[in-house]
């Protein structure tokens, strides 16, 4: 996201999304569909729950010996004839890729969808260096032509209609009078991108997993762009966060059984591509050079940090679909590379707590994300930690801290709470509309502008309790 965009406060970005009727509709249709597909996939998969526990364990076990597994991965990739590079920061990762591009004389790079390269803003850097980056996932391609950002990590262009895509293709690809039939549009994209795949010097991908024991980088796609980018250009560069390493092939099959089911409800995605270094002697296709860029960019600090558990993430997008906040505002409003509940944690990891002082509250803590997560990441727990951190380090505004601090003390003391209820009922009177508080002093104004804060009830539960207890009789 551009700096200009981030200067718009989260509240405004969320308001903008909430006012966009088309976006609301598209988000509702897409997330509902993904939720249904995921549920069906797990309903017909009795092993699912056990495998989720297993997958969670594998992730934790890998972090406990991360140095050993990454070391093995490096040794094995090098044994296959690949080269491994180490990036502590995003700037360093960009520089590594640019150096490879420069040395190999690359002028065009085809990219298979990758959150890691989005995270390091690689495309802008490549453009500045005179290398044309071409996104090849259909959704990403649409977004790139439109100069926009993905709104969903699995379906990046859900916010665009077929008509908008047809217009975009007609204009950008000089194909006037294009039908808006997705079949036709997909065919056009195939032709355009096929030509680029065959011409490109550089294939850039992420990695869904990397198997330490065999030195294998694993890519999962439905369109086949992952296969194209790793088989046609003469150089392949894979950029992966250090947390993507897993010990063995036996672990890989556990994750494969969960990833597609969680993301799209498929048993497996169409293409699972296992890459073990550059083309071998006697092979007709495959790159002459294979490079693996290991990316830290704030991850390693979290090994001992409060966000350690978020390093388990498979980037399946399941937590986005079930999140009541994401379903309302969509990916753009979050403002950073990673949207949704896990995106808030990823943003804090990459950019520090300050970057999520508003986002940490963009959650109702309902727990749907943790229920949907294939590795059962306790996202709400970490969001609360973040909120605490934001409050304790005084990143949050003073009035916000005062009000939340006071509410906290009130909730801890039942007797005080009893006294407070009638007072609150009196004070809230000018601000209540249809049972919801709108406006008010201190943080109440901005806080309630895009949120529903329920008014204190005519009779609180606490006030009703003695009566209820009498009615129920002795238990």
């Amino acid at each position: 996201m551009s700096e200009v965009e981030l200067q718009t406060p989260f509240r405004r970005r969320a308001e903008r999304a909430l006012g966009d009727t088309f976006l609301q509709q598209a988000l509702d249709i897409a997330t509902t569909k993904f939720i249904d597909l995921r549920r069906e996939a797990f309903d017909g998969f009795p092993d699912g729950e056990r495998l989720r526990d297993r997958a969670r364990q594998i992730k934790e076990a890998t972090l406990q010996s991360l140095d050993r597994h990454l070391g093995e991965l490096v040794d094995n990739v090098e044994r296959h004839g690949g080269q491994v590079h180490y990036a502590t920061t995003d700037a360093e990762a960009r520089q590594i890729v640019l150096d490879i591009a420069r040395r190999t004389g690359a002028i065009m790079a085809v990219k298979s969808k990758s959150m890691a390269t989005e995270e390091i803003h690689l495309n802008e850097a490549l453009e500045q260096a005179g290398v044309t980056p071409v996104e090849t996932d259909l959704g990403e391609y649409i977004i790139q032509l439109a100069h926009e950002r993905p709104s969903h990590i699995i379906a990046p262009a859900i916010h665009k209609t077929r008509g908008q895509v047809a217009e975009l293709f007609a204009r950008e690809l000089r194909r006037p009078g294009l039908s808006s039939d997705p079949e036709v549009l997909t065919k056009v994209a195939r032709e355009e991108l096929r030509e680029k795949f065959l011409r490109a010097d550089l294939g850039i991908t992420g990695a869904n997993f990397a198997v330490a024991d065999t030195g294998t980088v694993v890519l999962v796609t439905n369109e086949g762009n992952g296969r194209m980018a790793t088989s046609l250009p003469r150089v392949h560069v894979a950029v992966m966060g250090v947390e993507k390493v897993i010990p063995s092939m036996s672990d890989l099959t556990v994750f494969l059984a969960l990833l597609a089911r969680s993301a799209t409800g498929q048993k497996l995605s169409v293409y699972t591509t296992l890459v073990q270094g550059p083309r071998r002697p006697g092979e007709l296709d495959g790159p002459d050079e294979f490079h693996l860029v290991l990316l830290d960019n704030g991850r390693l600090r979290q090994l001992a940090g409060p966000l350690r558990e978020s390093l388990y993430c498979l980037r399946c997008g399941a937590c986005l679909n079930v999140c009541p906040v994401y379903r309302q505002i969509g990916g753009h409003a979050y403002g950073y590379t990673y949207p949704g509940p896990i995106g808030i944690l990823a943003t804090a990891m990459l950019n520090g707590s300050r970057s999520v002082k508003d986002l940490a509250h963009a959650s109702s803590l309902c727990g749907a994300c943790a229920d949907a997560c294939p590795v059962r990441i306790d996202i709400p727990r970490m969001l609360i930690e973040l909120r605490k951190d934001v409050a304790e380090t005084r990143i949050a505004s003073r009035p916000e801290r005062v009000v939340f601090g006071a509410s906290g003390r009130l909730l801890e003391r039942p007797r005080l709470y009893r006294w407070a209820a009638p007072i609150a009922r009196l004070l809230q009177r000018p601000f209540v509309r249809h049972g919801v508080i709108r406006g008010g002093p201190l943080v109440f104004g901005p806080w309630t502008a895009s949120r529903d804060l329920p008014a204190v009830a005519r009779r609180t539960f606490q006030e009703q309790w003695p009566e209820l207890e009498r009615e129920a009789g002795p238990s």
Partner: protein
Amino acid sequence: MTTRVEFFDRIRAEMRTARALFPATPMERPARPAETVEIVRRELSERWPATLERFRVEFERVGGVLHRAQTLADVPALIGGIARERGFERLVGWPPASLGADLERLLSAEGLAVEIMPAGEVSESARGDLRPRIARADLGLTGVDLAIAETGTLVLRSGPGRPRSTSLLPPCHVALFERSALLESLQQFGVFLEAWHGDGEGSGGAMINLITGPSRTADIELTLTRGVHGPKEVHAIFVEAGLRV
């Protein structure tokens, strides 16, 4: 630039203060995967008809088309049918050694010419010449290493005479397989992966492809569309009497 030593020093420094969230172990691995593979194969050889049926259901669910041939002699007519129905003229295929069948000879009886991929190392310029021809082909013919019933997946290892692009660039992919390729589950596949690795994967190529149906996308208004980058159609021909006869 960060060096390997610096990077790993950093990891170990962070690990020293890190606390495990809970006791955890990765998956247990087969002690002797090659032997386990043999056991799995023996067990499966008894119940291949059920495995094939499960494969058919799953393969069709993901948009694949399964054909059954009694013997290799029935295969050319099947391929000829697919090609003629669609007006395909340009066919490319794996060489006999990796396909398990000399289809060039058999298909010529059907009046179809197949360009056979080289079986070993070719010059840089020959590689350059071949690629556009594969990209222009209508149909790519390959073998498979394994077929996973649970997911309807074809597994293809790359290597000499087993180019990856044959199953990727043409809009139609046709794969031949026999009962020895059939596996029931992903978990069994994991054992094969361990075994392939154990027997020095240097003998093979640099890529293993799992193919589960034709290429697909739902990126425009969630409308399912096939054949974005990979093939629009995937056919699997099961040869009952086996290949290499």
